[in-house]
């Protein structure tokens, strides 16, 4: 397919800070390309370079093989990050205003409906909720029915239902042939919407490809996380075959294959959690039996498949460690935060299901 958006060896610095370093990418006609990466990774600078609102120090950005500032603006739709339009205009007036800047524009009323704000058209922007404000801003990028759409964090601050409205809107536009470049911190958003994902870290594009490919390559293995009341030693699972022979098989309840599976698994004991990497779902029962047999109290059990968030954390980990000076696993810390939230809710279910 024809490349609509192209960046070649882009470099951009702000004083001592390198915002972009040798970034090259291309986005094909009708493709959705998601840029992910930590804060300060260079996503916004890259979008600005591609839209002509910043001038790179080196390299080139092209839209339809032309300088971004030389293309017909009516073919572009741009939602800047932290965009704040005039706050004492209503949602409808704002869309009318931006539509009025083009020779041909969509009916603002239809755009309002598209972003789910048909009932809030008369409300001043300053009186809208954070999510509604962002939806108006998304709408402002759509009024001219663009061929290429740049959305810098389009769903930030939007509630889950509203986010899905915006996702469906973007999917619909792409289905009609609109090329979309978006940045996001929401991995579910990137995974659902994007044909390809690019991960920026410290100004460099460290990985790029379809979400499934990135997950397969960097997402790791399936993982079982068990929240325990106390720190548990991984020694508990050493020599499981020997112990199985010495004890009543029914007590442990482990099939030979499961035992072998557990012994082949990488087990990580963290404060209050046991993490089993690359473990088969069939071995979960055996792990639980061991805990039961050892009278180890656990509060929840979480099973997770590899996903884009894991791939992201794997790739972004080094950059974050370099920035913060912490060598600990960002993945582990963030996962711990997520797991804690998940485990609270899962506690009752797992207690019922496991005991």
């Amino acid at each position, binding site marked *: 397919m024809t490349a609509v958006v192209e960046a070649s060896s882009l470099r951009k610095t702000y004083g001592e800070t390198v915002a972009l370093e040798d970034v090259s990418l291309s986005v094909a006609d009708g493709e959705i390309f998601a840029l992910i990466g930590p804060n300060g990774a260079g996503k916004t600078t890259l979008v600005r370079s591609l839209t002509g609102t910043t001038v790179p120090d080196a390299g080139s950005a092209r839209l339809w093989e032309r300088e971004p500032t030389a293309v017909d603006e009516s073919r572009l739709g741009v939602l800047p990050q932290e965009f704040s339009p005039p706050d004492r205009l209503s949602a409808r007036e704002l869309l*009318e205003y931006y539509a*009025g*800047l083009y020779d041909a524009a969509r009916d603002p009323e239809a755009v309002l409906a598209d972003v789910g704000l048909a009932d809030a058209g008369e409300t001043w922007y300053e009186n809208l909720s954070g999510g509604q404000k962002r939806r108006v801003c998304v709408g402002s990028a759509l009024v001219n029915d663009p061929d290429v759409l740049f959305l810098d964090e389009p769903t930030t601050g939007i509630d889950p239902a509203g986010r899905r409205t915006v996702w469906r809107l973007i999917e619909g536009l792409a289905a009609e042939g609109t090329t979309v470049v978006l940045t996001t911190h929401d991995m579910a958003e990137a995974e659902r919407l994007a044909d390809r994902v690019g991960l920026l870290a410290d100004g460099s594009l460290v990985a790029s490809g379809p979400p499934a490919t990135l997950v397969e390559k960097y997402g790791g293995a399936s993982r079982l996380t068990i929240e325990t009341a106390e720190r548990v030693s991984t020694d508990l699972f050493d020599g499981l075959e020997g112990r199985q022979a010495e004890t009543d098989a029914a007590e442990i309840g482990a099939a030979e294959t499961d035992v072998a599976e557990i012994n082949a698994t990488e087990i990580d004991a963290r404060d209050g959690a046991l993490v089993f990497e690359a473990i088969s779902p069939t071995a979960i029962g055996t792990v639980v039996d061991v805990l039961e047999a050892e009278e180890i109290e656990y509060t929840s059990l979480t099973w997770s498949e590899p996903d884009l968030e894991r791939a992201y954390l794997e790739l972004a980990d080094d950059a974050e460690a370099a920035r913060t000076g912490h060598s600990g696993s960002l993945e582990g810390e963030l996962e711990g935060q997520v797991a804690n939230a998940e485990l609270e809710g899962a506690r009752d279910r797992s207690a019922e299901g496991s005991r």
Partner: protein
Amino acid sequence: MSRLGRVRAQTSAGWRAFVRRRTAVFFTFFFPVILIVIFGALIQTDPTGGGLFAEPAAYYVPGYLAVVVLFTPFSRLGSEVARHREGNRFEKLATTPVTRSEWLLGQTLVNAAIIALASLLILVLVVVLTGAQIAFSPLVVAYILVGVVCFCGIGSMLGSYTDSQDGAVAASNAIGLPLLFLSETFIPLEQLPGWFGPLVNLSPLTYFSRGVRAATYPDGGTASVFGLEPALANLGILAVLAVVAFGFGAYSIPRTD
């Protein structure tokens, strides 16, 4: 329709945004009124004595008009540009067909409408409260419009080269206040040190002041310019300065970071 439509969209949005800021509307009109009340009605002029207000009341009409013609564009454009920068609105506009000069023209038209209304109020109050005897010349309208263009251009630069709304307002006050008093508005040239005379000619407001005075107070003794009628000649000079200021003002508006 293109250019006209874009300016219309800009003007319409700018006008709505302004009139919905009630305090801004109130003080835009209240500021010159309070000055007229203080200077014209409380202090009053004293044509026979000395002091600051020793000229006939009509002499000070350009000064009262200058309060809105100078200060409103300075503060409004300065803070509007700063607000646009802080909200990444220029980044958005840079990717639309609207040009910087169209944006500034839209803002200028909004200011022109506001200032025309405020000027009308000022003229009425000056006549009623101070008893000023002035000639109503259509040139006054031209001076107000050209002055607004000029000071909107400078206001745009203030907003572009300061780093925040607060900075823009502070800069507009710091620059506007000296200009207001040192441009032959309230203080005749004779009351200033001799060496200061040439500096007065650097202020665009001086030409506004001289021209409006020549148009509204023919007995004010406004000097001719190269033998030309002062009311027209000063308008010509102000128009040239307005074109330059508008050009620089539009150019100063950021399109990139």
